[in-house]
């Protein structure tokens, strides 16, 4: 073993052929982009179905913009949920936290301070609820499922109490909130831009920062992450706070779209968000996933809802279709994962 003692860089075993995937640039996380082709295909397919079944209504700009506006609320929540799930957790409380934030922001007291304070209030309430869940999970060592289930129930209850089970209207002097969904820039309402901004920021955070990389590490192998010097608990706490923040933003969007705050907002959003994340290719066990996939998942679901409404079909059929789509998407991904790698 004389060579190795002298030089560590010695390549004693002759030339090595460069495999075709060994191109420079990016440590990458595998053939991620290819995986999304299926979802893009599904979107295209649903679009064709829309054009064929409702040629007069589907391709109108009003309908397409409506789809995006509809997707904005759940989309923003899904961005947060993607982080939590990649980080090895789950957040069942998203819908309830959004409802709580919308109610808190529309109480008479909050409304008296004007629209900016309302928005800040929604964000603070959302983030605060996320912090509480995160503390329980990271430092109280509760299982995420349990902690966020408790938050789901408690946040709904608190929202009901604050609103006295009544739908609270955004008052006319605060119509700046509603303007977020009525004001259009380049034909798109502002809420769509909020969604886009959150999605882009989330993508950058996940793929271009140390925080994102550590999220994958914490979700993939928390023990290894800890031994690599990552503060796993603090990171976990941050992930739930991030999810709560997204719920707060989503509350602003739903207030803008409905001009109300209500304890019934966002019912079962947690399931829609998790479903979108899963069909987007994120592992429910953590450590692997993409934000682009989650966004595509949201769009697929929203498009289905839209098609069913346009065609005047039952919501029950819509739910069945969504269930089928989840199963098909996951089955396709598993096949897709197996062949290229």
């Amino acid at each position: 073993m004389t060579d190795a003692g002298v030089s560590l860089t010695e390549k004693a075993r002759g030339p090595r052929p460069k495999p075709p995937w060994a191109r420079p640039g990016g440590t990458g996380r595998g053939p991620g982009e290819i995986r999304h082709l299926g979802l893009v295909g599904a979107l295209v397919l649903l679009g064709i179905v829309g054009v064929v079944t409702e040629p007069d209504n589907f391709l109108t700009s009003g309908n397409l913009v409506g789809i995006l506006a509809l997707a904005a609320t759940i989309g923003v929540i899904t961005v947060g949920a993607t982080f939590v799930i990649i980080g090895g957790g789950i957040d069942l409380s998203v819908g309830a936290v959004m409802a709580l934030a919308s109610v808190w922001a529309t109480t008479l007291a909050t409304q008296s301070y004007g629209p900016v304070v309302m928005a800040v209030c929604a964000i603070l309430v959302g983030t605060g609820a996320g912090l509480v869940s995160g503390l329980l999970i990271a430092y109280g060592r509760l299982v995420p499922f349990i902690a966020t289930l408790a938050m789901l129930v408690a946040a709904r209850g608190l929202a009901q109490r604050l609103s006295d089970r009544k739908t609270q209207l955004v008052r006319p002097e605060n119509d700046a909130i509603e303007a977020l969904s009525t004001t259009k820039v380049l034909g798109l309402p502002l809420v769509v831009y909020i969604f886009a901004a959150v999605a882009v920021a989330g993508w950058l955070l996940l793929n271009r920062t140390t925080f994102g990389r550590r999220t994958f590490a914490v979700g993939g192998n928390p023990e290894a992450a800890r031994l690599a010097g990552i503060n796993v608990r603090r990171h976990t706490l941050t992930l739930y706070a991030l999810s709560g923040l997204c719920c707060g933003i989503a509350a602003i969007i739903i207030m803008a779209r409905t001009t109300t705050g209500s304890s019934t907002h966002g019912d079962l959003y947690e399931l829609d968000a998790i479903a979108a994340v899963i069909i987007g290719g994120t592992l429910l066990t953590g450590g692997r996933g993409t934000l682009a996939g989650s966004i595509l998942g949201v769009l697929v679901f929203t498009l289905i809802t839209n098609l069913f409404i346009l065609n005047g079909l039952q919501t029950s059929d819509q739910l069945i279709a969504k269930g089928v789509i989840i199963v098909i998407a996951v089955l396709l991904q598993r096949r897709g994962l197996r062949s290229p790698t």
Partner: protein
Amino acid sequence: MGPAKSRPDGTGTDPEPLLRMRGIAKRFPGVRALDGVDLDVRPGEVHCLLGQNGAGKSTLIKVLAGAHQPDEGEILLDGAPVRLTGPTAAMRAGIATIYQELDLVDGLSVADNIYLGHERARYGFTRRAAAERGARELLGRLGHGEIAPRGEVGRLPAAGKQVVSMARALSHRARLIVMDEPSAALAHDEVTNLFRIIRELTADGVAVVYISHRLEEIREIGDRVTVLKDGRAVAGGLPARSTPTGRVVELMTGRDVEDVFPARPAPAGDAPEVLRVEDLTLAGAFEDVSFSVRAGEIVGLAGLVGAGRSEILETVYGARRATRGRVLLDGRPVRPGDTGAAVRRGMGMAPEERKSQALLLNETVGGNVTVAGLNRYSSFGWLNRRREVADVRRQIEALDIRPPDPRRPVVTLSGGNQQKVVLARWLLGADLPPGGEPPGGGPDGPDGPAAPAHGLRLLILDEPTRGVDVGARAELYAVIRELAGRGIAVLLVSSEVPEVLGLADRVLVVREGKVVHSGAARELDEPAVLNMIMEGSAL
């Protein structure tokens, strides 16, 4: 297609082989893992498989276990061709495999694990009493009657889990048992027991395919040896006892390995103290441990598994919080129980369990290398990925990680290469020429004298060569010494006494949580150390 010279000494004829593999080939994308391997195993023999990491041993035994389907070739059992379509088919054919990473379910009881997949049951109801009786009998036969069949497997030590795995193999009435590095997790006396069990099995006509990197073991227990290299059997059926070591190593590596531990100048006596441990105590694990490591010094801890070696390392690193005592790095105390603080102060650790403690199995090689040093490539949390990848490539080159591809999923690498990935994590930037360093080596990198390897001050290695073959071991040894030569303090634990003696400048012998001896490595030899290690247990 087939290798030119298989079976050099006509082993095919004399006793009818129990297992015969012919021209087994298996390809994975980009890799030809097996390229026409032949293997004959006779009943009642211990047939050793040798080969470097990536030579194809793991793939070959996975073919035997039914976990992989070969692309080409045939498998004959008792002369009749069989198709091992899955693990169940293999077990039904009488082939049981004990994997290196034990495949036990931690949450189940010992008995449940032994009969997992072929539960003692009637009309779908498990027969717990029968299972426990059977388990007790099997464990007794293995000389470990003290393991309770109802106990939870997760609470057993590594050696105990090994025994449970073995009992599971026996419960299948296996005619052929494949053991992938069974001794890797075992301490000295447990290996003796393992060998006793193997001898009993072979006396009953059971054949054993035995994989180990320890040549001494192969001499002791093996009958014949097949050497794999680059997916081919370069020699089949060599006599295990009489083939010279040099010849075996030459076959494995294609080169001579003369001296694995070349002489190294001792670190200068006035080298500054990097690590000082004072009266460190972790209740129930170790007590009042004090020692120091100087810059450029390699200190080895020798002791039995369970003597507290790993716990000492983990406490120094902050992965466990000490009950009492202090850890000082460069003269300043390190915040206890905080691995983040340890890393920022310049500690790095390669833990004992690679898969569960070190690797991010979903990640690429690159992602695994940089996970602990991301601050190096970021400003305000923003990653500079080009610089990151450049550094990863440099590490891959420096440590000869194969295949040399930062984007490859780390799970596809062999054990030795995975270990190199873990080492590379702490060596980021270490091979840069002086002066060419990127700015900002670390947030509070010490501006002490000659900060080497970007502030890496102390490297902690727990069983650095577990599951690593002879050739790659030598490379790892060279890397460790090279690092010490650059002034990094190294603290290491190994179950292999020669490794500790060969690598370390100073040796601490740990027994039952106490340091019982501390002295220069060159004043010790293997029997002396073994004596000190075992003394307590012999009482």
